[in-house]
């Protein structure tokens, strides 16, 4: 075997790549993970609000979320040897207008059809669960089995454990192309060398699209700017994961640390420019206005850090997790559209099953790469 060869080469050292590497290494595969940034987990894995939720999800990906919350998250800290700050104390998705409540009710109906324990509650019921909510909240959807965790920790915990199990990680290595050998995906051509894999997994976020293009495939991803803010540590206030029907903020308080992490849609994304600095000057302000409209009590809390990045939004906002007919040996895992974190352990497990068992334990047909009709 040549030096840079492994059973599986994973392109992308985000939480998807790291989780897949962990389950593959645990399953006895040799793994090489290539990450273009110097630090592992520098993309969307470090830019999200940490939601581990089922409610509000598209029915196509809901089974993955439910599998993760039922079978993986509760014991993940123990399994990885790192407290990933998982807290399963429910998700409140808040509404302030009748239109919001309609949106929430629609989502709730679909989730109930999939067997999820989620229900609509009144504003007062929501305030009974979270007494800090303002009177402006008219109602909410409530899913008691949802929760949150720390995405920075979870990513690095998967990385750390995978590495301990023998997975090889190379960061600061930009992948340029995937090359085929006798019809199969075989070689990953990177800036500093060639890497050979029996299977190649592309889990490279936005970078997945140009990379897939090198083997004649395309997945409709587009960049969306995501801004994240973190506050100083505060006294323990509430444990729920929060979201809104208006999608104007989401976030939670870390139970262990006391700081709040918020992610936001500032409303500027369609106009945001790729480049540097990434953060826009108005985003933090917009986020704070939005958050304070639900939680006026947080007015004095200080923001100590904010950051932004581009996530891989898929045309239908649902990921692609798929083998490809045209390129055997290639597996795609991208397009998580800003809600990948919560399902990442389950996705990592599914990817390992695809490699080791030849098929995932869940039916992923609805998440195929060729559903867009542009193959």
């Amino acid at each position, binding site marked *: 075997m040549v030096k840079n060869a492994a059973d599986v080469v994973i392109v992308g050292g985000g939480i998807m790549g790291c989780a897949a590497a962990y389950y593959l290494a645990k399953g006895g595969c040799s793994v090489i993970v290539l990450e273009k940034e110097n630090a592992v987990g520098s993309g969307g894995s470090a830019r999200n609000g940490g939601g581990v939720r089922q409610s509000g999800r598209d029915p196509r990906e809901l089974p993955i979320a439910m599998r993760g919350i039922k079978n993986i998250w509760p014991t993940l800290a123990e399994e990885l040897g790192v407290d990933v700050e998982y807290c399963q104390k429910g998700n409140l998705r808040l509404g302030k207008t009748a239109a919001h409540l309609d949106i929430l009710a629609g989502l709730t109906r679909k989730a109930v059809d999939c067997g999820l324990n989620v229900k609509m509650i009144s504003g007062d019921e929501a305030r009974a669960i979270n007494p800090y909510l303002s009177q402006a909240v008219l109602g909410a959807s409530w899913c008691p089995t949802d929760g949150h965790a720390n995405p920075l920790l979870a990513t690095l915990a998967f990385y750390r454990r995978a590495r301990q199990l023998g997975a090889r990680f190379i960061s600061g290595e930009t992948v340029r192309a995937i090359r085929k050998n006798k019809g199969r995906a075989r070689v990953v051509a990177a800036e500093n060398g060639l890497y050979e894999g029996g299977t190649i997994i592309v889990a490279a976020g936005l970078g997945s699209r140009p990379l897939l293009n090198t083997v004649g495939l395309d997945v409709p991803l587009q960049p969306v700017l995501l801004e994240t803010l973190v506050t*100083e*540590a*505060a*006294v323990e206030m509430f444990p729920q994961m929060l979201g809104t029907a208006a999608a104007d903020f989401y976030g939670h308080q870390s139970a262990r640390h*006391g700081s709040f992490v918020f992610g936001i849609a500032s409303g500027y994304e369609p106009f945001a420019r790729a480049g540097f600095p990434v953060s826009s000057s108005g985003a933090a302000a917009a986020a704070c206005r939005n958050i304070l409209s639900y939680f006026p009590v947080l007015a*004095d809390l*200080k923001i100590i850090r904010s950051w932004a990045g581009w996530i891989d939004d898929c045309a239908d906002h649902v990921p692609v997790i798929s083998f490809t007919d045209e390129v055997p040996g290639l597996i795609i895992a991208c397009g998580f559209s800003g809600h990948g974190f919560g399902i990442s352990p389950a996705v990592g497990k599914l990817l390992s099953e695809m490699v080791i068992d030849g098929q995932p334990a869940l039916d992923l047909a609805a998440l195929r790469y060729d559903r867009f009709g542009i193959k």
Partner: protein
Amino acid sequence: MTRIKEHPILGVYPKGELVEFTFDGQTLRGFAGEPVAMALRSAGVLIHRYTSKLRRPRGIFCAIGRCTDCVMVVDGRPNIRTCVTPLAAGMNVRTQYGVGEEK
């Protein structure tokens, strides 16, 4: 005596009005407009807070608002950098325990 009465180069320091404030309920005096931390240091108070994890004492460290070690609960708000917060008459200054007041 912690306050410098007269300095060989700077002479006599221009100070605001002498005002009263409370530290953990005890009445102290300091000059309006000077940083809260200076009034406390002059009154012999060195411990501003006890940390979250190890419950260790902390006080002034950088004195220019960068290190955030000197934070206290001021008028009910935690994490206030006392080295850059001007003293005002009647201020309620409390030792911070972890991220808030003593439970």
